[in-house]
């Protein structure tokens, strides 16, 4: 029987929000736990244990993933973007601005996940319909807003980003 000890730890390298990090983690460590507890990215939240609430959503290699459904070792070598990576040079991302302007968050617990799902949606579909937005955030539960202002904010952000591209 092997002992549980340092030899059991796995070495993982991930690039988070543009910077490389390395850590030794247990094989069973989830990506969300590595992000929060080891690397200190506490933006992504944990709201369930079955991959349904979406509060832990991050972008991994350009695709949105629920980071509670990914093992840290699976993320080895990956590029990750968390909600902390949206802001650039002290300026909020247009999505964050739109969430603020449209009162798209109340308690804010689901917001980091909503923002990352919206970010992924707009990266694939810069001009989504209301139906497409609703499908895009279907995996992110919110109990404060009834989604009304989240949908509105994502629409407004898409418009904002399109305008910025034009000018």
């Amino acid at each position: 029987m092997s002992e549980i000890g340092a030899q059991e730890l796995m070495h993982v390298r991930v690039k988070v929000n543009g910077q490389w990090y390395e850590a030794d983690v247990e094989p069973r460590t989830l990506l969300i736990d590595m992000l929060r507890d080891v690397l200190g990215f506490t933006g992504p939240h944990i709201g369930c244990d079955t991959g349904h609430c979406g509060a832990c959503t991050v972008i991994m290699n350009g695709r949105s993933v629920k980071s509670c459904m990914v093992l840290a070792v699976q993320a080895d070598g990956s590029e990750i973007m968390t909600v902390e990576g949206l802001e650039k040079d002290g300026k909020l991302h247009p999505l964050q601005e739109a969430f603020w302007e449209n009162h798209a968050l109340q308690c804010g617990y689901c917001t980091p996940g909503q923002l990352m799902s919206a970010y992924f949606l707009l990266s694939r579909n810069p001009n989504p319909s209301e139906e497409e937005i609703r499908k895009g955030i279907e995996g992110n539960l919110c109990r404060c807003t009834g989604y009304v202002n989240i949908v509105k904010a994502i629409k407004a952000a898409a418009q904002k980003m399109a305008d910025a591209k034009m000018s």
Partner: protein
Amino acid sequence: MDAEKALEPGAPLLYEEWGDNLIYHGDAKFGDVEGAFARADLVVEGTLVSNRHSPTPMEPRAITAHYDPVKGMFTIWVTTQFPHVFKTYISQVLKFPEDKIRVIAKRVGGGYGPKSHVYPDDVAVLQLALKLKRPVKWVETRTENLQVTGHARDWKIYYRGAFSRDGKVLAVSIKGIADFGVYGPFWTEIQPALVAQAQAPGPYKMQGYEFDLYCVTTNKAPYAAHRGFGRPTGSLVMERIMDGAARRLGLDPVEIRRRNLIGPNEMPYRQVTNIVYDSGDYPKALETALRSFDYQGWRRKQEELRRQGRYVGIGVSTYVEYSAPSSKRLSEGLGWKVGGYDMVRLRVEPTGKVKFFTGQSTQGMSHETIFAQIVAEELQVHVDDVTVVEGDTEDTPYSYGAWASRATVVVGGAAVKASRMIRDKMIKIAAFNLGVEPSDVDVARGWFYVKFDPLKRMPFSEVARIAYQEVHRIPMDLEPGLEVVTTYEPQVYTTASTAWHFVVVEVDPETGKVDILKYYVLEDAGISVNPMTMHGQTHGAVAHEIGGVMYEELRYDENGNLLNSTFVDYLVPTALEVPNIEVEHIETPSPQLGGWKGMGEGGSIGAPPALFGAIEDALSPLGVKLDRAPLNPENILRAIRASGAS
């Protein structure tokens, strides 16, 4: 596992020493109930089963406790809606000095009721921390959350309503059996059930009202506070009675409600339950809603769609949400050791920046915005110059916390009072320096100015600086500094908000699936501090009960096992189930300070009866009657089969 069976003679006893399974039994009769039923042209009777569900805030409960033996301080970080009450309670439970306890509850991820309790597992964490003298942290998993936190709305109700031929409600009689599970955590106890009974009569005039209430213990999780706190159940019964009577009398569901409304000239109105509504204009609210929603237009459209074979229905509901209860109701009426007041501290700093301290804690209700707005308006400073401090018992005054939709009304009122105290003092200091009488000075947009010579003026920040740094420039009878602590309690019995909900649904009778085509809410919660945050709370509260009445049901097997304790099978509605909710607001001010009324829970009261009515209306060609929530495909198909239509 069945509350009704638990009442039968010979039922197994959960607590043998009790001799029965009753936590509480109480009945009350108001007005002439028997006479009304004897005179009635029509008696509507029925049963209603409402489903146990939980508000499941996205952040489950969490607690970290640290005892510092050197300082003797016990610091607790906890997801609570009432940090000060939490402190008082655990001091009593642990026999630990209250002045050595600090409770911190900053930015809690959703509350909706279940976080206005102290749970046994909280106490266990605290005891461990004291014993180990090491920090101890516990975070509830979602499964644990669904198993024990926030169960509510589990009722079976027998109702009767007496009506005259012209649709006037004469009296209502309700027998309610509420399944409270095992005896509950501090401090809700059976109050939601009493509130449900007090809630039912709503905006309607009636001569008689009676209830007979059984709060039963079973092998389920304990009952908890849950957005609406009994009101959704009370209003659901009342509105089912109105819909039933409308159908039997051949009246439009809007018309029967219109005929029974309390008039604006009758305010303040003592409801049959003796609860006094402070203000309201229910007919005006209705007429506004009918126009905005285009009720007649939707009825025509419904006929058209029906001819195409589509099952489209329109539902309507209304209620009165009595909020921010006074000490008269809480400590005198209900016997709680709870005040209806709240205490705040307000400080204008030497720089002219403002800090507002409240013992509330926020779970997403935009306190930082609305209290800052209220103070900024009174002091005539920029809203960004006001900082709201809350959620830490160490630097905030005592507060009973965030529940009963009370924060804006009570804390907002205290904010107005404190601001006016500081403003009056600053006016005196400004007048002293401008060489005029205080009555000649006013404040606007950051300047104190002489009313008859507005160019003679001093900046707000300069007056603030003088108040601290140049005592010789302050009138002799004033103390230096600009800081006050004050309490406020509305002078009314309770502030009474109202709303009208209109919803259009389409039902697929083959599958029982319901689509919401349109959802409209007209709300009157008095003066609106911030329409955006106010509408946001209505959206959320409606969405909560779209989930509660259509999808969410905590189900047990006969051995007491909870069958759905994850989001795999406990269905919280997603962005695909919740429609765009339109909210409109009219303002009938409350006669007390600020004119506000509580509203954070209202959407959850209006949604269940509106959805019941709409789905039943959609299926009315099949003669379907609904008496059991959730209105999920399983129960809708069962109701269709029971009607003999398929």
